Every structure is written in structure tokens, then in C-alpha cells.
């Protein structure tokens, strides 16, 4: 029978006390794991996601952080809209590699419905650098195709959406459904990004959503304004084409109400600037100002708007990938200097600032759980120390049958080590299980992907814990050493 075996049997003999001590250690370790996973997961997740775009163009009256969170993490409201023209400008900007439009505000069973272009699935990547559009079950919707959608993996799992299934969306968090239906044509692989919990529709269809019963409510003034805007847009398009020497390519879009589609993200320059006036709702005199439709409360930056043309509604944001990250500062400065209805924000800077604000809280939490582990360790020491008083006879018997002082010392220290080891193992398991349980919730609510797997950190925690166990075992072991043998074996005659 080894020293470790004797220590184990001693712990078994004091089951309840040992169990409670180990549980206190386990709780401390579990909390440490959960907090650390939360911290690192949040930082990694946000930073990884924020790297998706070099800049995001959003409305000037929205906060930069709000723009980033809404666009990239599908959290909160858009905070307003920016003119469609900003998107067209971005498309012809020579420094821009990708410009991805976003129009948000509708939901499907708690999941954000994002109007965007197929380019998004190419522009954004997961943490390992694989494009979101890779390994899709089914396919990505085509630009200009109507009423198709792609569903994030988690959104699909939670809503039961499968390929071929039709769905209807609601305004914001409301229960009022739009009349239009989309067919699921693809389901993204689990990417560990906020895209997992969103549903994507062609941005063209976003502008066709709506109750068109209010047709004809638009005033003559609004129609005139609308016509002027469209004329202006045509001129802008012609000018852009002339400047860039690009042939207009509107094939496949003659029935489309947008004509700006990206032809499946291959070339941004061949499909922009088509400010068509044949949008479905407008064809039948449906032009109107959003303010006329109080009934629609998007709560997402489209408040009071009625879905209509892209020029009327504008966009929630535009994701910008530049041809080189070096251009980032200049691009943002240029947008800022234009002082238009658009502001450019750098997602990584916003996320860095966000974590600069909240990281002290994270550090505080970490210290609190470290203190919990220390308290649990002290509890272990007190528990062992107190048992020594009741174990004098046991120690004396061990010594009488030949155990040397270092054997007794080793047994007691081993007990502390075993408590810390098993408490630590259970704590690691519980901690990781907790992370697994809360990960989907956090991904859904905050766009944070938590890594629940084991790693080197777990080994370090266990090693530190064993060192700690050694430390807290010293005092009780020293007390055990001082146990007089003869007088504790039995009364002297």
C-alpha cells in the first residue's frame, strides 16, 4: 500500500468533509475557467470578427460602436440609415476592394434578418481564415434573385429552417409578419462567427418587403423628389461609367428592381450605379416617405419607414474592405473630411476601445475568482488541520508500525494534493461544461464565440493548483509530524 493509497483511504474515511472541500475547489476552478474563457473568447471573437472589414460606413447620427456591433455582430439596432448613394460611391472608389451593403431591421424568431449581397460571404471569414460562403449546405443566393435566403448554422438549428423551407420575417421584434416569403437555399457551416445566428436575404428583396396597401399615399411632392433623385442617380451612374470605362452589365436584371447586384461578388464595378426606377413598389405609384407609415416600427433604425426603394430607405451600413490595409486611415479621413451623411468607422479600433473600457471589469472578475480559489485552498488547509487533531491516534498507529515522519508528512500533503487534484479536475470539467452550455447563448445574444475545448491553460491551472495544494498541506503535515506517538497509542500504565 503506497503513501498515496493511504492518503486516498484517509480521504475516503472522511467522505463528507473531503467532498465539500473538493467541491469548493472545483467551484473556484470552474468559475476561473468560465471567466477566463469568457474574457479570451469575447476578446478573440470580437477582434476576429472586427477584422472582417477595414472600415464600416454608417449613418452620422449612429454611434461608431453601435454601427460596428450591429453590422458585424448582429447586435442591437442600426442607429439610423445612410444614403444608398454612399454605397454606389464606395463601389467606384478605386481604393475599395469590396463594398458590402447591409440593410437590417427584420427578424425571424429572434434572429436578425440581414439584407446584403452575396459578396458578404466571400468578404467575411471565420477565425481560421475560411470564407463564410465555403462549404455551404446548398448554395448562396444569387444577386438579384428574389426571395431566397441563406441561414446561419445556429439560426437553422434553433428555428428548424431547412433547405427548401419557406419563411416569413417580422418587423423588428414584433409579431407582425411581412407578406413575402423567402425560400432557404443554403445553410452556412458552423463558423463560430456572429453569422451563425443570422439569416441573410438578398438586399434587393429587402426593399420589396412591405405592406403595399398604402400605395397612393405618397404625395406629389414625394414623387417629384423621387424622380429628381432617380435622375440624379442616372447621371451619376453615367458619369461613373464614363470615368471608369466600364460597360454596363444589366443582364439578368431586366426584371429586377435594383440592377445593382454584384453578379455574385465577382466584380463590384460591373453592376453598380443602376438607380432603376422600376422597383416593384414604385411601379404602381407606391413611392412614399417613410414618415407616412407610423404603423411600422422597426426599432432598428428604420423607424417610421415603410419599405420601399433603396433610395428611400437607404442602408444600415456598408462594409468596406480596402485594397490594402495601409489605406485604412486615409480612407476614413477622406470620408470624415467629406462631412456628408456618412461616417466611416474602423471596427478594430472600436472593439479595441470597447475592451479598453470593459477589460478592468474582466480583470476584477478574474481576481475575484482567483481569490475564491485561494479561499477554497485555505478551507482545505483548515479542514486538514482540524482533522489532524482527530487523527492523532491514526498517526501514532502509522508511526508504531514503522512509518517515518516523512511518511506521515507525505500522507497528509498527499491528501491536500489529492483534494486539489480532484477538485481541479472536476472544476475543469464543470468549467468547460459551463462554457459549452453558455456558449450558444452568448453567441446568440452577444455574438461571442467561446472556445470550450481543453488546452495548455488547463494544464497550467492544474499544475498551479497542485503547487497550491502542496502549500496548503504543509501546515497540517507539520502539525501531524509533531504528534507524540506513545501517548496517542493508548494510555500509559
Amino acid at each position, binding site marked *: 500500500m503506497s503513501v498515496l493509497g493511504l492518503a486516498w483511504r484517509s480521504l475516503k474515511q472522511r467522505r463528507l468533509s473531503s467532498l465539500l472541500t473538493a467541491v469548493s475547489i472545483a467551484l473556484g476552478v470552474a468559475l476561473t475557467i468560465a471567466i477566463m474563457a469568457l474574457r479570451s473568447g469575447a476578446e478573440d471573437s470580437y477582434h476576429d470578427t472586427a477584422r472582417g472589414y477595414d472600415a464600416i460606413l454608417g449613418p452620422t447620427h449612429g454611434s461608431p460602436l453601435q454601427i460596428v456591433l450591429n453590422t458585424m455582430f448582429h447586435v442591437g439596432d442600426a442607429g439610423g440609415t445612410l444614403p444608398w448613394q454612399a454605397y454606389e460611391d464606395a463601389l467606384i472608389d478605386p481604393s475599395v476592394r469590396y463594398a458590402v451593403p447591409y440593410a437590417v431591421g427584420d427578424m425571424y424568431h429572434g434572429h436578425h434578418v440581414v439584407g446584403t449581397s452575396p459578396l458578404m460571404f466571400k468578404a467575411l471569414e471565420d477565425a481560421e481564415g475560411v470564407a463564410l460562403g465555403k462549404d455551404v449546405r446548398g448554395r448562396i443566393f444569387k444577386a438579384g434573385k428574389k426571395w431566397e435566403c441563406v441561414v446561419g448554422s445556429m439560426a437553422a438549428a434553433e428555428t428548424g429552417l431547412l433547405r427548401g423551407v419557406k419563411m416569413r420575417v417580422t418587423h423588428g421584434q414584433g409579431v407582425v409578419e411581412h407578406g413575402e416569403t423567402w425560400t432557404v437555399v443554403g445553410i452556412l457551416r458552423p463558423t463560430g462567427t456572429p453569422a451563425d445566428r443570422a439569416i441573410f436575404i438578398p438586399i434587393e428583396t429587402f426593399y420589396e418587403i412591405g405592406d403595399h396597401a398604402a400605395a397612393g399615399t405618397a404625395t406629389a411632392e414625394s414623387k417629384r423628389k423621387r424622380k429628381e433623385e432617380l435622375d440624379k442617380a442616372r447621371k451619376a451612374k453615367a458619369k461613373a461609367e464614363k470615368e471608369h470605362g466600364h460597360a454596363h452589365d444589366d443582364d439578368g436584371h431586366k426584371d429586377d428592381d435594383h440592377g445593382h447586384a454584384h453578379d455574385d461578388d465577382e466584380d463590384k464595378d460591373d453592376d453598380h450605379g443602376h438607380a432603376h426606377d422600376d422597383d416593384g413598389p414604385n411601379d404602381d405609384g407606391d413611392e412614399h416617405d417613410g414618415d407616412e407609415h407610423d404603423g411600422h416600427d422597426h426599432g432598428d433604425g428604420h423607424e417610421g419607414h415603410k419599405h420601399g426603394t433603396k433610395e428611400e430607405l437607404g442602408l444600415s451600413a456598408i462594409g468596406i474592405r480596402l485594397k490594402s490595409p495601409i489605406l485604412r486611415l486615409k480612407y476614413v479621413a477622406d470620408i470624415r473630411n467629406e462631412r456628408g451623411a456618412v461616417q466611416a468607422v474602423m471596427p478594430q479600433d472600436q472593439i479595441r476601445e470597447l475592451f479598453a473600457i470593459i477589460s478592468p471589469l474582466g480583470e476584477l472578475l478574474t481576481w475575484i475568482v482567483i481569490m475564491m480559489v485561494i479561499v477554497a485552498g485555505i478551507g482545505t488547509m483548515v479542514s486538514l488541520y482540524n482533522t489532524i487533531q482527530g487523527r492523532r491516534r491514526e498517526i501514532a498507529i502509522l508511526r508504531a508500525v*514503522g512509518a*517515518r515522519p516523512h511518511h506521515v508528512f507525505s500522507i497528509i500533503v498527499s491528501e491536500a494534493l489529492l483534494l486539489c487534484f480532484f477538485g481541479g479536475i472536476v472544476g475543469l470539467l464543470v468549467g468547460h461544461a459551463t462554457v459549452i452550455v453558455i456558449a450558444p447563448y452568448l453567441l446568440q445574444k452577444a455574438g461571442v464565440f467561446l472556445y470550450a475545448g481543453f488546452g495548455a491553460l488547463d494544464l497550467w491551472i492544474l499544475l498551479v493548483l497542485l503547487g497550491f495544494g502542496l502549500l496548503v498541506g504543509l501546515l497540517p503535515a507539520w502539525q501531524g509530524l509533531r504528534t507524540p506517538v506513545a501517548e496517542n497509542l*493508548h494510555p500509559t*500504565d
Partner: protein
Amino acid sequence: MLALDVPSLTLAPGERVGMRGESGSGKTTLLNVIAGILRADAGVVEIAGEAMTGRSETARDALRAKHIGYLFQTFNLLPGLTALENVQLGMTFRPRTGVAPRKAAEDALARVGLSDRRSYRPAQLSVGQQQRVAIARALAGHPTLVLADEPTSSLDATRAAQCIDLLLEFAEESGAALLLVSHDVGLLQHFERVETLELPVTEGSHA
């Protein structure tokens, strides 16, 4: 302070010696000094040619583990261990002899007739069974010397007789010398040689 007055006492290998003494005469103290649990201030204790006295506590512990089997009045079995583990405990701290401790413990338990109780804890055993486990523990490792301190005082007469017979037989089989202290004259009749321990004297009179 009192001091033990012990004249020269020598046990030959395999010899069985009873020691009689009144309560308070220091019988247990004498055994503890021989076992090295207590340090003798003066005098010499040697076991198999190795001096127990004059050694450090750790060295005395090691010598005790190597040579001595101790049978206590109150059995002193560890409550958290099974009968087999308690017997094994007697060999845990001994130098390795080539005999597997578990096998030796199983044999010893079989010798005292408790093979079927090997996985029982002391609380699940009768008093007589507990004492037999203690005998097995003291003798399983084939010690040079077995010290027995009032080993039957907790038993009734019948069980006491059975216990002493078992102890004597087992000690003889293993070749161990046996020194048993008791105030029970009847018990000491089993021994060919019986020594008497006088009451302690005031310190300084003897060493």
C-alpha cells in the same frame, strides 16, 4: 520523575517470554522503549545486533519497521482500512524482502482464519476478529521480535485463551521471538519463561 528498573533482558531468536508487572510498573513504557517509540535516556536496546538506542527518531522508526511486530492492547487497527489493508499496513514501511506484501497479508489472514473477512472494516468485525487481524498484522512481515502489550485484556477468557494460543503458534511458525507483557497470571502460564517488572524507582537510582 520515575525511571524503569530493568535488569538485563535477552531474548533468543524464536524465544517466547512473558513479563509480569503491576499496573503502573511501566510494562507498556518498556515495550515502547524496546520498539524505539520512546527514547531511552540510558541503557542499551539491541535487536538482531542493531542498537535501537542512540539512534535518531527516524532511524528508530526504520529499525522498528524492519524488526518488530507490535500487538497492542486496543488492537489499533485503522478504521478506514479493510482487514487485508490493515495487515498490509504492517509491511508498508518495511524494507522490501522480495515477498509481495499483499500475498503475505493474505497468507497471514488465512493463518488467523479470516480470509473471508478480508474486505471487512474493523467496525464490521467482532472484538475477537479484530484481535486476530492485529495478530496477523504483527506477524505477517516475519519480524525478528513481536511485542505484545496485554493483547487479551479486551477479550473474555475463552477468546483470550484462543488468541494466546494463536499468537504463540504463529510466532513459532514465523520464528519470531515474542515478548508479552501482562498482569494476567493465567495468561503467563503459557510461557516457559516469565520475567517480572518491578515498580519504577525514583530517577537516578538506576539506569
